[in-house]
């Protein structure tokens, strides 16, 4: 491939993404009702959380089963900061992202020593501990002290977590969330195509080889955890504003299982997979339940079966499998119409 064709490919890809972004920004608000818009907001937020997993597992090969716990920490932090300080919204997002990032790096520290199964287990245990602590502290609702939680709610002090000044309505907030999520995806993409991305790929393929090639493994592993946690933290802040009054019940325990299942089914190696994961996690249950009146618990069964299929036959998930399958299908359909290659003359 010459550099010129490569450039053209990148341009086409960027144009397609920009067009899709424009569609996401303007088509749903014009065509769909309010409950659709709130659902799509969650889709955008959860796709960022899944993108964190793409960074950790897809790019570096470190699995974390505690991303939902981290998301809960982000939401908690944003809520607490909202009651504590009067920050402009972008600063609130950045502060939440920074604090979650610090917690995530702390959880990721053992990753320097542990890998594979044991790293997965330690993040699972970390998530369990976070769950217990959050159930005890509960989410801030205007009280004092560290937890900011009051048992008997004083209606005067109860607020909903602030939204950005030009995104107070549901539709405006949806657009704001989509733009922020697109920016976070861009940040991740910028990492993938530059030096950290190459270092991560080296670590994923072989840690000893990366070490021998002079890759600073400690730095780049921590960097991956920091990036994934920052993204998850910002997503948590958006989620706090989305819920208004987040509670412990907003983060059911099976969500950490569905997140990892949908991220793998969507495709753990690309950011498209993260978007598909968000759709599977939030939009599909909504459509099943409210539009078709189907028990959404069926989805858990389908996720389980899909996870098995991804693990056994299609490691790239939908994001990589679908284009392949579509190309095969196209070839199959085109076969009857294609002219048969005539036998070369004079071969007899």
């Amino acid at each position, binding site marked *: 491939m010459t550099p010129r064709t490569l450039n053209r490919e990148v341009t086409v890809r960027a144009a397609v993404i920009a067009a899709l972004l424009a569609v996401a920004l303007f088509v749903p608000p014009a065509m769909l009702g309010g409950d659709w818009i709130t659902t799509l907001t969650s889709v955008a937020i959860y796709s960022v959380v899944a993108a964190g997993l793409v960074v950790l597992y897809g790019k570096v090969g470190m699995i974390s089963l505690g991303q939902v716990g981290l998301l809960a920490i982000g939401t908690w932090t944003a809520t607490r900061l909202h009651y504590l300080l009067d920050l402009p919204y972008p600063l609130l997002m950045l502060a939440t992202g920074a604090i979650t990032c610090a917690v995530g790096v702390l959880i990721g520290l053992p990753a320097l020593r542990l890998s594979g199964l044991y790293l997965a287990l330690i993040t699972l245990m970390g998530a369990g501990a976070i769950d217990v*602590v959050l159930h005890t502290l509960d989410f801030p609702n205007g009280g004092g002290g560290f937890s900011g939680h009051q048992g008997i709610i004083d209606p005067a002090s109860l607020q909903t977590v602030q939204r950005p000044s030009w995104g107070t309505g549901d539709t405006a907030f949806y657009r704001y969330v989509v733009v922020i999520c697109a920016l976070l995806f861009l940040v991740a993409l910028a990492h993938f195509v530059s030096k950290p991305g190459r270092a991560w790929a080296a670590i994923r393929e072989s840690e000893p080889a990366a070490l021998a090639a002079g890759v600073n493994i400690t730095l780049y592993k921590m960097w991956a955890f920091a990036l994934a946690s920052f993204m998850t933290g910002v997503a948590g802040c958006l989620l706090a504003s989305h819920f208004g009054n987040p509670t412990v019940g907003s983060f059911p325990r099976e969500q950490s299982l569905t997140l990892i299942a949908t991220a*793998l089914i969507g495709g753990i190696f690309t950011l498209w997979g993260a978007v598909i994961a968000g759709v599977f996690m939030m939009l599909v249950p909504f459509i099943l339940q409210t539009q078709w009146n189907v028990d959404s618990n069926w989805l858990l069964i389908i*996720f389980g079966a899909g996870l098995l299929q991804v693990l056994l036959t299609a490691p790239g998930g939908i994001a990589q499998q679908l284009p392949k399958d579509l190309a095969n299908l196209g070839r199959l359909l085109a076969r009857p119409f294609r002219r048969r290659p005539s036998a070369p003359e004079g071969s007899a």
Partner: protein
Amino acid sequence: MHNVIAFTVFGVDWEFFKPYIVLGLALGGAYALSGVGIVVLYQATGVLNLAFGAVGAAGALICYWILNHTSWPGAVAYASCIAFGAICTFVYGVLLGPAFARRDPLVKMMGTLALALILLGFMAWRAPAGGAFNRVLTLPTSKHRFELAGAVVNWTQVLTLVFAVVLTFGTALFLRHTNLGTAYRAIATDREITATLGVPVRRVEASAWLGSGVVCGTAGLLLADLFTTLDYAALTFLVISSLAAALIGRLRSLTATLIGGLTVGVVQAVLTPYESLTQYRTAAPFVLSIIALLWMGRHREVVFSKTAR
């Protein structure tokens, strides 16, 4: 509560803690039971079964249904819980075990996560939690109580602890002194070489799945009783607490798993009387297993082959 703290700082007050230790041992027995089931399967097949809790919970729900919606005798209900655990685990192992056999332990674990999701979906669909009533599954042994060291204990708790101890030492003896046990240990060391030596590897692995499934069904039955309400989500995620016991045993030693399970149970129970800590006591398994994991990973190793991870 100040006097409690004073006592513990200047010498442990055993009288005060006795009832909590007794209760903790019963709880720890349940953790140890599941932990041993997990460790044996991990050693024999390399699969860390995260569906252990979900399978047990589904078995307990079936048992509950038989007890409350049919006129069949109780023994059938209890047996069906154990049978479900055995069959479900066995079928998974026989169908999918070979497909995952050469994969990374992490991928094997994710496979059981898929089984857990499928079972969770079925349970949430057929037996939604909450609502007007709580399901309660009481074993006949729970009706007989007696007092021990200031704590009221029922026979189910005693049974759990005894079963955990018997299972641990029974399995240890089995691994050491029978042909099948030797085959397990050989597979744990190297599956390929064991197969070359003429051991029917798949059949041995299938027997490990079956045995682990029986333990799983039994643990589901006992835990459903010990936790007073039959909440399938809580039972499913209880596997994470049981993993603490297995991790303290480094996923290898059965005796250490037993001790680990009992320790976790006792620590969790002993924290109960402290006002400031009592709400955090359920985090004890997680904290202890994080410490165990960090201890296991204290030597940095550079791993050269992907399968060795």
